[in-house]
């Protein structure tokens, strides 16, 4: 029954697309091209290929879909050949450009496949292969979560491409490089795959597995709604779901989106939900992007609380067939977007601020200069082996909550001189503003002899942030030899090949 229903949905969806895509730029419409596009958008690439193969005519519309299919399946070299003959078509030109960029980036890239997991990962740089097991784990768990919570299903394989920098990310996806730099984009779900930057790209990594889950949510929503989900829905749920593939960590709830939105409203950085543009990655600044993310996350959370999971899924289904988002939302939830936004903003006004001031996304992120200098002196002295002097140079951090980096350095310094209890105090979530790779690594080391489960979770979170950081990968302090038994020896070897010596110069 379910299968029959699914097939009916597909057919209706295809018909819907055929009706809905009238008025696109292509002059020539062929029903089969629209159906193929719908299948490709849903990531049913094998079905699309069948139709394409059996299609008798080779019109520009079909050529365009063939080019699209090649992008989805990773045949970047073939995109230009497929799009030959299509003239004066912006979409085709864009695809050719992306195909060329993709061919360049993935030339001689390493492909790893996990048949059981139905996963293909291309690594632009070989060294990133060390993260493959972590990727597989995150993808499998994220897919299960999305199946469970959103009703998504997954055609196989799931495709991931790990690139080394934003330049390559831009080339692979078509996102303008400047826009990526401005908003600090680390991953994009487009062309049926997730393209993400290696965690090596940032010196202490970033929450890259959460980022992966975020993008997989996008893929799931695209499939569920045949890419008709509005931006607020896509980003809101992606933000919401990105941490739900794993155990919650103490910092997940620390920085609530409501606070960010409220600060953003004060600074006039907020935007109406239907005015977010085509992509949050193209907003004028990182601060505005952060506020926008918080808005949609908060809104979606609110919407889900006020309705239900069932209503949400109904909303996804309605999006496949009706003409407008408002229509679908009204059918599924009883009100249109405007009404819901009003309700949400009203509720937002009632949300109290927490007693402890958390750093807001609108802050510039700079820390006091004096602390910077002390931290640097600490690092230099630590490097010279002057542990006591390093601790003295770092000095007093003042009152909790401490900056995570400062706390990490001090904890490391205390650890080095044998004051592990004092160090353990700094490795508690309550005393720091947030966690990051090296801090989790410190917590992991210090918890190893106290609470194995805590240590294990911390180790997991450390590599989820900074897998190539020496401390996270090798479970050891800088300038100290790693233990003989390692959780992830391949990762440690990769880290050592990159950071010799760590924290240098």
């Amino acid at each position, binding site marked *: 029954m379910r299968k029959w229903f699914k097939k009916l949905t597909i057919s209706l969806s295809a018909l819907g697309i055929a009706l809905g895509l009238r008025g696109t730029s292509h002059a020539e419409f062929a029903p089969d091209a629209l159906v193929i596009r719908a299948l490709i958008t849903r990531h049913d690439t094998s079905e699309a290929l069948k139709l394409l193969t059996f299609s008798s005519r080779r019109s520009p519309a079909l050529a365009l879909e063939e080019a699209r299919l090649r992008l989805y399946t990773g045949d970047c070299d073939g995109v230009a050949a497929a799009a030959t003959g299509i003239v004066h078509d912006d979409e085709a030109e864009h695809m050719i450009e992306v195909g060329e960029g993709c061919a*360049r980036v993935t*030339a001689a890239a390493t492909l790893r496949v996990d048949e059981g997991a139905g996963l293909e990962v291309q690594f632009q740089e070989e060294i990133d292969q060390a993260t493959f097991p972590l990727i597989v784990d995150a993808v499998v768990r994220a897919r299960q979560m999305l199946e469970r919570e959103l009703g998504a299903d997954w055609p196989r394989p799931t495709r991931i491409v790990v690139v080394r*920098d934003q330049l390559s990310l831009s080339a692979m996806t078509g996102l303008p490089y400047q826009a990526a730099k401005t908003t600090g984009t*680390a991953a994009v779900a487009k062309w049926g795959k997730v393209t993400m930057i290696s965690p090596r*790209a*940032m010196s202490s990594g970033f929450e890259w597995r959460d980022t*992966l889950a975020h993008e997989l949510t996008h893929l799931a929503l695209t499939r569920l709604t045949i890419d008709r989900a509005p931006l607020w829905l896509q980003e809101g749920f992606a933000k919401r779901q990105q941490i739900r593939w794993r155990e919650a960590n103490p910092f997940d709830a620390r920085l609530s989106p409501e606070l960010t939105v409220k600060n953003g409203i004060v600074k006039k950085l907020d935007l109406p939900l239907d005015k977010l543009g085509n992509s949050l990655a193209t907003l004028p600044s990182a601060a505005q992007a952060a506020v926008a993310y918080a808005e949609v996350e908060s809104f979606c959370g609110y919407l889900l609380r006020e309705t239900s999971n069932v209503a949400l899924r109904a909303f996804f289904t309605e999006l496949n067939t009706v003409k407008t988002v408002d229509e679908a939302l009204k059918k599924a939830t009883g009100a249109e977007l405007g009404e819901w936004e009003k309700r949400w903003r009203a509720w937002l006004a009632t949300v109290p601020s927490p007693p402890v001031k958390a750093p807001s996304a609108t802050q510039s992120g700079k820390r006091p200069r004096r602390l910077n200098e002390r931290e640097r002196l600490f690092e*230099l002295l630590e490097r010279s082996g002057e542990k006591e002097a390093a601790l003295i140079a770092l000095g007093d951090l003042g009152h909790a909550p401490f900056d995570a980096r400062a706390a990490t350095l001090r904890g490391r310094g205390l650890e080095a001189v044998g004051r592990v209890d004092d160090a353990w105090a700094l490795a508690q979530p309550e005393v720091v503003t*947030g966690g990051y790779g090296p801090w989790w690594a410190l917590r992991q080391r210090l918890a190893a002899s106290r609470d194995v489960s805590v240590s294990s979770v911390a180790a997991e979170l450390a590599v989820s942030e900074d897998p190539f950081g020496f401390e996270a990968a090798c479970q050891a302090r800088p300038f100290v030899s790693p233990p003989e038994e390692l959780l992830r020896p391949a990762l440690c070897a990769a880290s050592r090949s990159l950071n010799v010596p760590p924290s240098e110069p």
Partner: protein
Amino acid sequence: MKPEEATAEFVARYDRIWRATRRGASAVAWLATSVVALLVARIGSDGSRALACFMLVVPVSLAAIASWHRRRTDAHRRLFAIAGKRSRREVNALDRAMRTEKRAAQYDESTELAALAVSRAMMRIPAGDILLREATYAMWVRRASIVAVIVTIAGALSSFVFLAEGADVLFSRGGIAPVRLPYVRDLEVRARPPAYLREPERTVSGDGVSRHPKGTVVTVRVDMLVPKRSFVLSDGAHEVPLIDDGQENLVAHWTLSEPARLRVRARFGNVAVEDARALELGVIHDESPVVTLEGAPLQLSLADPNVPTALPLRYRAADDHGLRDVELVLRTGARETRRSLSHFELDTRVDSGAYTLRLSEAIVSEATSPVEVRIEARDNDTVSGPKWGKSETIVLVPPKVGESEALRQAALRKARDASVTLLATLLSPPQKSASREELRLWSERWRSNANNLKTVTAEALRFERPNVRLKARLAARISKLLSKVKAPPSPAHPGATDPKRSLLMAEEARTAVEDFALTTDRIAQGLDLASAKSSSKKLATSADELANAFAAMQRDSAEGVTLSSYLTVLREAAPYMLAFGPLGRELGQVIKNDLGRIERESASKRWRVAELSARDLAARLHTADFAMQSSGGGGGKGGGGSGDSADSGSGRDGEDDLDQAFNDAANELRRAARDQKQLADENAGDRGDSSEADDAAKAELKKRAESVRQAAKPLPNVGQGSDSWTSKGASGKEQAERAARALEQGNVLEAIEALRTAESDLEEARRMAKKSPWSREGEGEVTDAARKLGDERGAIEKLQRELQKKGAGSSPERLKEQEKRQRELSRRVGRLMNLGEEMPDEAKDPLGHAQKHGEEATKALGKGDRDKARDSQRSAQRELERALEQLGESSGGSANGNGSSTEGAPLVDVPDGKKHHGPDELRERIQRGLGRPSGPRIRDAVRRYSEGLLR
């Protein structure tokens, strides 16, 4: 006698009569036919030769056939043939009788009667008469034969040459007659070398082998023994007709391009008969120029600190005939740059010279692969095309990309690390309860570490490689900070034994050492970033060229050597990049990783994939930026990075106060140098405000202007060709007009210059006019005009001296204004000199000199002595520029540690409307330049160029 016997006898007697005659006549006939045949053969065509053969062979054959026929024929038939001519009836009767006899014998009838009839018939034939007649005929035939042979022999003798030629032609093979005949009586040969050699024509001996330059035109004049034939000159493959020169000789011209053996040939149709004499000619090929470069071949490593900053290139080029161009060629990778050193229009066989190649030039300093330096010279061979000669090569091996910078960074970090060691000592002072000995040991450690710091810092500050050194202001800053690092108390100092005081002193010293460590660290990080970026840009070029080489491999046209050289550059640079902080590490890893995939694909000959990988690498290196900018990601945290900005290695958030002070001081110094130059230019240009000049002086200048115009009036307005005196005359008039305009504007100096130029032009015109007999009148006009202009110039110079004394060249107000500005400028320079640590000491010395000169200029302007003021101003300007050099600054742009402008823009004063005289200034400068005396040969070219600019 029986009839048979009678018949036989008759025939025998007949044969006896004709035998000798027949033989003689046959011989004569054959001789005559042969003569004709040879003459026919001489035509030379294939048909004529065939006919001649026919004529020689056929008569003999016929005679032989006739003789054979006679012997075969029986006597009776012969009788009938002989006698039948005259005695037909008798012969017929005999014939009938013989047939009757035969029939009778056949039918066995009475043969006696038939025999009788035959006898009677035979008796009736007048054999005697016939024989007598035949004898008479034979006699006449003999006589005719004699005559014929005489005629034939006479004819043959008279045309013996023709016959000989005919025979030669008849037996020719391959178009050449087998026997060479003596056609040439005498031969005269002259050789004219190619025009570009500028050698005279010379006579060539016909004997032996003579050698001539390729392209020589050999003129062969022949006196023929036998005329009226079609003669040609040939080397066996080509022919040139010998034509009548009107002096009873034949002449032909032969252009020598390869060795040749020339012969005269007589052409008969398809056949040629050669003369016995041959002319052997050899070819001298134009050699390529020989170029020597002093010291080459040589290889210099630019990483060697002992390599000078400039390379003198002394060369010598020589050619056997003449040089056209000498060029300096610099080649690196696939790029080549050529610079002209000499160009010759006239013959120059030897050229020597020198050129100084600065190793800071972009093509050398930015090269990532060896730079080949050589001198090339081209000759003027117009026959086979100009040839290039090349010298040996001097190879400049650039340091590995990033190598020099990495060494500098290592030295800087060594200094930093020494300060960290010292800091550690100061952070670990002895306890208050420490003993004296512990204190002493600690002080010793302090002292030792402090000394070590000073030593390694001095080394770091002294570091220098071609194009890589620490900029003066950074070095000055480090020096200043180092000077604040306190030494430990001496043993005699009370603090040496008092822990409390030691702690205090250590605390004071600690701050200075921390400042030193942090500053040096920051400087190192900043230089890391700059080095990473600059190295990345260089390597991006190599990566681009590598990608192009792979693309060419797909077309089967690349060289393996090129691939490996680019790969080597990238491979060798990667380790150095890793030393340039976070960005360098990132890019170094990128290079290592990408080289891995490129080499993998290259080894498998997957050129397309290798090309794409190389292009990917090039794109990344061109970007030369961090892999990820801005915190937060598409799905990551929205902001509030932890540790991102501090350890990004991009350095500080901004410059601190001292850096800002440095930049401010450097900018102010730059402005001061510029202002000083402007003041000096204003003074030198005598751009005083003539509207306020003395009225009398103005009137006088206007009068002079008119006189100048009048003096130049007779001169032509337009030249009539560069060879004509009118061209120079018109130029002189133009200069005179320019002088007149300058006088009207009050620019006396410019007027004097223009008049000098006019006089020079007119002198040249006079010389040219003198040469031509049709230009006497012109010569007179020119001489007269030149004299008058000379007189005017003298008067104007005198006026100028008077004006200078009075200071009437510009108004007193103008002088006062300039004096005021100069004084203010001197004060500004003084303030710069008194700056503290933001102005390095090395710059203060020239600043002091500049201030002194500025004050002298102020005094001179106050006294109205513009000349002295101008000299002092120029001196001040030079000193200010020297001070700028000490800072490592150029006159434009602020700079970072690497001497290249990557951050910040120079301060630019926006000129107000009154100050901006851009187009006018340009025109005036060009005209001033045109007005300066220059050689007459180049002046026209300079003018055309300048007119093009102005247009």
